[in-house]
């Protein structure tokens, strides 16, 4: 029996779909990759979803879309309230934008044959470094030089201060890496697992008469795994914004 096994990491390949050569700018071309295409789709869905959600309300009809959006808004306001102690409400738009972008990227990745943009370390590390850079600038702007007191925990003996500053600085910078890697690693592991299980399920079902009879078992398992991945997609978007709000609180209240 011929066993066809595709590389489970093949789904994360970045492939150039369209490319514009720019001969006036040497060594520069402007390609549209599958990553870029799915990012554009997510952007389009976020913007059109927001615009369209307000239409039924404007013509005086019941609007379940707006209720859903308001529920998500309320959920994120509660999150920011619980995490950011000082004047956190002005950061809610940033948190909502981040949450909706990551959530939709994760969910679009679960559509069969589609591409998971949040499985790319380049994208998630870019997001996490941007978040850390942003909160650091905010902290410096708010507290000036006093911001660096974040590197010295309260009650530290003077002898240990140099050592702790180094440790805390590494720990502070490592947040940027951990935030991005957590999201990508979760997405990659889930999709690889789905790909492997689905490939083996297909081989099992089509391989023998026993597979045809008992084929519902791997399909059931695959369905359960898919539901789990759906949960992971939502949870990871939540974890990303929760930690962003927590970092925001750290730099605002300096602890």
């Amino acid at each position, binding site marked *: 029996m*011929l*066993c*066809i096994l*595709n590389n489970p990491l093949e789904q994360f390949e970045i492939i150039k779909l369209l490319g514009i050569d720019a001969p006036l700018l040497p060594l520069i071309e402007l390609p549209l990759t599958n990553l870029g295409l799915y990012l554009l789709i997510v952007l389009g869905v976020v913007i059109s979803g927001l615009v*369209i*959600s307000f239409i039924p309300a404007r013509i005086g009809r*019941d609007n379940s879309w*707006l209720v859903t959006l308001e529920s998500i808004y309320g959920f994120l306001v509660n999150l920011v309230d619980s995490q950011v102690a000082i004047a956190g409400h002005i950061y809610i738009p940033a948190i909502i934008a981040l949450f909706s972008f990551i959530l939709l990227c994760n969910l679009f990745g679960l*559509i069969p*044959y589609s591409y998971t943009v949040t499985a790319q370390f380049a994208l998630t590390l870019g997001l996490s470094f941007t978040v850390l850079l942003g909160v650091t600038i905010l902290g410096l702007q708010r507290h000036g030089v006093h911001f660096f007191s974040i590197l010295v925990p309260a009650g530290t003996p003077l002898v240990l201060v140099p050592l702790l500053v180094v440790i805390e600085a590494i720990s502070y910078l490592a947040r940027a890496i951990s935030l991005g890697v957590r999201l990508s690693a979760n997405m990659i592991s889930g999709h690889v697992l789905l790909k492997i299980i689905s490939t083996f399920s297909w081989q099992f079902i089509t391989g023998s008469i026993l597979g045809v009879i008992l084929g519902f078992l791997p399909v059931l398992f695959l369905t359960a795994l898919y539901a789990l991945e759906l949960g992971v997609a939502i949870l990871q978007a939540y974890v990303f914004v929760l930690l962003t709000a927590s970092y925001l609180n750290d730099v605002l209240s300096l602890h």
Partner: protein
Amino acid sequence: MSSTKSLIPPKLSVSGITGGAAAFAQLCDLYSKLPKGPLVESIPPTMPRLFGRYWYRYIRTSSPAPLLHIILGVGLMSYAIDYELHLKHHKNRPHH
């Protein structure tokens, strides 16, 4: 009396009304031009026909169907891209 006058609804304001029979006629004219009967929502004439029908059926009613349409559309597009880039090369032979 003037204080109670401001409380009595409706407070109609039609520009150019000076009072008397002319004002009443103008008011009748204004109301006679308003649409009558139950609210009929139609496709806005400025919309393209296809989008107008979609808007009338799904968006106006805040139906969950557009979500399904997006999933199906993205799924079909993704399959087409995947077929062209990967699947047709792997047809009946293992990955190299």
